[in-house]
């Protein structure tokens, strides 16, 4: 590894995470706020950018890794979670972040979510949920409300949206939170907490699409409607209450931590390490792998 002894081992300034690529997002897009909050959260956590792997799929929000100085992987539609798991298993020392939109995570990639959650790798998954497909210019998304008229649902949607918060809680995630760029300190705080949580951490960010989104999904509406979970007196250790509150998704805008497992389970990546250590006490020469086929007993 090409490390320089004199280089700092911590990065504590938000600007250290800002790359020189200019975002392609529309002016006023909620994702700018998410990016700023992420810079701040990363600066608080302090891991240097080269120790971070930031994976995304496809969509407006999936461009986000390129706007950071971390190792980024802007992959294909819906597959960020499996790729991130491979990264984390191959190198558990990395801080691995996954990001994407509601279509990427709950529609085309929806099949991967329960498995990422139940395996409980130490990952942070940020979804920028805008209830619309923005990159392809305004089609129905899996979180679009029933009745929504879009270019692919001209007569109004006749299906119910998914409830990502409830799903992820039901799958067994150890950390589930929601934020909005309308509350930057709150958003920064939940992202930071997710990054620090030892296990699968999910943050749903209500991130408005200024171009194709509905009026009630914009920051102005968020400011007026958001309700802090802490303000409601919610105890994040209470998983059942968290599920009851999560059921309001689409009707209420709750911000903050829905659930934080007070006794986080061992992570998959830690167990992988443990198994490797148990089964390989020393360095096993690779050619030994053929011994089990030897007819003369080998060894």
């Amino acid at each position, binding site marked *: 590894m*090409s490390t320089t002894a004199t280089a700092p081992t911590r990065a504590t300034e938000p600007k250290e995470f800002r790359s020189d690529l200019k975002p392609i997002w529309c002016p006023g897009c909620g994702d700018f706020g998410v990016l700023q909050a992420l810079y701040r959260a990363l600066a608080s956590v302090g891991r240097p950018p080269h120790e971070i792997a930031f994976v995304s799929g496809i969509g407006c929000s999936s461009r986000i890794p390129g706007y950071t100085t971390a190792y980024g992987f802007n992959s294909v539609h819906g597959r960020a979670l*499996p790729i991130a798991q491979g990264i984390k298993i*191959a*190198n558990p020392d990395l801080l691995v972040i996954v990001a994407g939109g509601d279509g990427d995570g709950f529609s085309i990639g929806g099949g991967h979510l329960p498995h990422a959650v139940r395996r409980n790798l130490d990952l942070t998954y940020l979804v920028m949920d805008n209830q619309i497909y923005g990159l392809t210019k305004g089609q129905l998304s899996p979180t679009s409300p029933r009745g929504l008229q879009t270019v692919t649902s001209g007569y109004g949607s006749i299906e119910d949206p998914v409830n990502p918060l409830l799903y992820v809680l039901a799958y067994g995630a150890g950390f589930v939170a929601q934020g909005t760029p309308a509350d930057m300190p709150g958003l920064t705080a939940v992202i930071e907490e997710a990054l620090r949580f030892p296990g699968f951490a999910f943050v749903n960010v209500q991130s408005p699409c200024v171009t194709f989104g509905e009026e009630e999904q914009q920051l102005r509406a968020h400011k007026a409607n958001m309700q802090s979970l802490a303000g409601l007196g919610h105890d994040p250790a209470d998983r059942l209450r968290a599920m009851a509150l999560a059921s309001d998704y689409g009707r209420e805008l709750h911000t903050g931590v829905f659930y934080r497992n007070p006794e986080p389970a061992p992570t998959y990546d830690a167990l992988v390490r443990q198994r490797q250590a148990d089964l*390989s006490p020393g360095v*096993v020469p690779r050619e030994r792998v053929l011994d089990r086929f030897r*007819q003369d007993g080998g060894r």
Partner: protein
Amino acid sequence: MRGDLVIGMAGSGGDGIVSAGESLIAAAAAEGYHAVMTKSFGSQIRGGESSCRVRVATSEVLNPGGALDVAVALNWDDFLMFGAELPVSGATVVLYDAKTGVAPDKLPLVGVTPREALAVPFANLAREHAGTERAKSSVILGLIAGYFEVAREALLHGMRRKLAKKGESVVESAERAFAAGEGWAAAHPLREPMPLARPAEPVPGKLLADGNEICAAAAIFAGCRFFGGYPITPSTEIMQFLSREIWKYGGAVLQAEDEIAGIGAAVGASFAGAKAMTATSGPGMSLKSEIMGLATIAELPLVVVNVQRGGPSTGIPTKPEQADLFQAAFSAHGDAVRPVLAPTSVADTFWTTVQAFNIAERYQTPVVLLSDQEIAQRKETIEPIDTSTIAVEERRRPGEGETQDYVRFRTTASGVSPISEPGMRGGNYLASGIEHNERGAPTASGAVHARMNEKRIGKLEPLKRRRDLFRVFGNDGAPLGLVSWGSSAGVCREALAIAQGMGLRAKLLVPCLVYPVAEEMYREFFASVRAGLVVEQSHQGQLYRVLRMFLDLPKGVRSFAKSGANPFLPTEVAEHLRTAALALQREAEDAREPQE
């Protein structure tokens, strides 16, 4: 004395047919014979008909052989189910269960009278001597040892070892059943005895394995540290082997939720700096196509094993076919070229798998390893592998000073740019499926796209000049040429020997690199060829067609192709070659005929 014996057996689940075959090949291997064993089953999950063929020889065996020398039928319905895999000829000795009630001259075999048929009371012998019909497989082994003098001591030794855990009484009853089989053989001698010659002294370090196991072991030897996959017949044993072994070498296996996640995780692991692999069969390959394209454009090393089976769709999961070559070469959208390698035997799978990793790492590309059900699930004795002669390559990482102003996709003479990985300070970059410039920044520029296509495709050119990825057998400068790949190549090597025995001057080209097409290698081979065959197990003759995309083949070179699950016999390939030679001869004579 004969030097080669092909034994085929069929029965119902519970008859112990496959277990008898396993014992036989293990004993043959222990005594120093060369041997190969294939298994074939009906589609039932458990029970149902099962069969195996074991070929035992005193010299190297390249394929499961042609018509059987010995057929063992525990009942005729099951035996006939495997007609194509267990062909009986006029030279076959048939041993069948007397309780089928069929007279030796009334066997239900169409158009063939075997050399000799014997109604053996398998079930009765087992019951009388061992007290249970479950001992039938030991009776079979005793008969084989008795009639053909194959590996008697090793069979008994193996039987004792295998049953030791079940207690002394089980061992003893198996021994009695074995002795009963031997005794029956002694009491009912063949009209002409068929003893197999003794093998040479066993070489230390000889191996016995199937293709999937060897592929997995080779991956570990090549330094694979991550496997992501999803169970699918007939490739699953690769994941099973790795899930037992890879941890010992610091690696990990992820049994993913689906085929896409399996390859996705493998790409992620490769991005993180680990050598990575996924394995599947046709349907899984279809699902993995998109992420293979991602590995191509992001220039990430990756080995993708496709153990081919009959297709399309679910097709025939338990039978081999070589019909996924088009898919391996062309399933990507966009201008993607990825190397495709094909092993020709279990033994060859070790070397070929290591090459797949070496190529993936050196050229930062996905590599497809096209195995097939026959190689993957057949067992074979393997000469000792001297691993010290097989080089293992590592990807070119940025060296000292190269992470100053690091440019991930920097233009280089070879097209290969040093690749960093998370954790490496200064190597930070954006990997992406979107087209990108040298620095990794997304772009829609046509000029950059053209330049990057040239980089990604051009870097693979040197592969086509690797002579070790092509093997030529037979007479230099011969006018008759065979080309074959994968499991068919072993049949063609034997066919070549038969053809040469007929006095034909012929040669055989076996490409290990089946794509991209190495034009020069083929031009050189075909320079002397006037007639020949491209032999492969697919309906369309996929290699033949791919070759014609890139080359002008000699006029007399034709496709000899069959759909999967229809095995080639060495004799029929040789016969086709003879026909081609005759046509060539006639043509030459016609041309010299004096004009009237």
